[in-house]
């Protein structure tokens, strides 16, 4: 008899060692996330996957699944919390979608669409950040970095290169590259490295590829990120999903 947890009342099986996120994804239950990718060590920094476990809020990507957990995922309150977190990610950087070549393929944008985020709510920071276009094939636009550390983990765990790291704390946090000059051109990064392709936003880009697929025909232009993420993870839905919490038809009045 396999062990189970419940998510929004639905019984989900899990195996020892799985996180709540692993069990949910495997069962076809989407929990919004940005800093998590199944094949990388969980980091738990973006907090979008916050779920309520037996009355306490936890990050689903780092919290182990344990027998009998009663988990809330798509509640009005958690959806509102996730929307506020996403709005904070937007206002802390410079996210100008109309001029970004990642638009339509961007997970930050796609999560915001999924949450029916229509405004930024908070005052915008307009931080002063650099673009590093020194490398022949790869560029970094620091304006769009959300410090998810996926490139840090991918470079270390998959590419075996340690090109990236996060430096500084709080509002001074920033992505650095492993070169005396601080420039990408002086690293051993290659356009085929996983670190370059794992970026959920338009912060890390391969040059001269941005408009190969026209705007309007990109991944999230027609498919929601929950469908895309679950399909990519090869999940097996355990039962018919309950109707999602009216994402997309939600009230667009300014939430205050």
């Amino acid at each position: 008899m396999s062990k189970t947890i419940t998510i929004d009342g639905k019984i989900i099986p899990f195996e020892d060692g799985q996180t709540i996120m692993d069990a949910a994804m495997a069962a076809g239950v989407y929990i919004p996330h940005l800093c998590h990718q199944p094949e990388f060590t969980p980091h738990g920094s973006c907090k979008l996957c916050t779920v309520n476990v037996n009355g306490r809020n936890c990050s689903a990507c780092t919290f182990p699944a344990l027998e009998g957990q009663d988990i809330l995922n798509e509640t009005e309150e958690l959806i509102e919390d996730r929307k506020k977190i996403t709005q904070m990610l937007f206002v802390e950087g410079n996210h100008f979608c109309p001029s970004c070549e990642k638009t339509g393929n961007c997970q930050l944008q796609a999560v915001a669409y999924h949450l029916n985020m229509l405004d930024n709510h908070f005052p915008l920071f307009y931080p002063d950040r650099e673009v590093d276009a020194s490398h022949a094939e790869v560029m970094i636009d620091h304006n769009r970095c959300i410090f998810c550390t996926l490139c840090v983990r991918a470079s270390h765990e998959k590419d075996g290169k340690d090109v990236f790291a996060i430096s500084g704390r709080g509002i001074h946090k920033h992505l650095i590259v492993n070169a005396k000059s601080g420039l990408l051109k002086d690293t051993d990064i290659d356009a085929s490295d996983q670190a370059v392709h794992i970026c959920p936003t338009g912060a890390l880009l391969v040059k001269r590829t941005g408009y190969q697929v026209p705007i309007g025909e990109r991944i999230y232009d027609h498919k929601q990120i929950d469908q895309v993420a679950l399909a990519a993870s090869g999940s097996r839905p355990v039962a018919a999903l309950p109707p999602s919490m009216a994402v997309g038809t939600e009230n667009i009045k300014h939430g205050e």
Partner: protein
Amino acid sequence: MANKIRVATTSLAGCFGCHMSFLDIDERMLQLAEVVEFDRSPITDIEHCTNCDIGLIEGGVCNSENVHVLREFRNNCKILVAVGACAINGGLPAMRNHIPLEECLNEAYLDGIGVENPKIPSDIELPLLLNQVHPIHEIVKIDYYLPGCPPSADVFWKFLTDLIEGREPSLPYELVHYD
């Protein structure tokens, strides 16, 4: 017809692209005109807002005149709507925000390639530029947001018909785009 819904529109630090997209509702404009009357708007050339039901604001706030116009709309419109990326987050004009204003003016009017008769415009009629471009929700209370660069004609249509027919406006997934 009496008691038409009164709508005012303006473009602040915008490109009028949102207004052009609004006009893309095409023949539905005739249906709209049966129940809606335009007050201050580039469509009517009326210079100042009087009491309105809906105010549509395109563009962010980049100069002193934008601030005055935005406040005039807030004072006169029951429902104020931020239309398009620039009204919502400053948009492309806000990409000047990390460049000092003096450098922007020097580049545009003195040092830029191809500038003739270099001189920074200083006519007293010109509104003064703000140091930074701001989204409109930082200046006045905004009731609704229509994202997009521009929002599609269907976004305008969905939003206005929801409001006119007494429904709480909502945008389904396929109408929400930031680009």
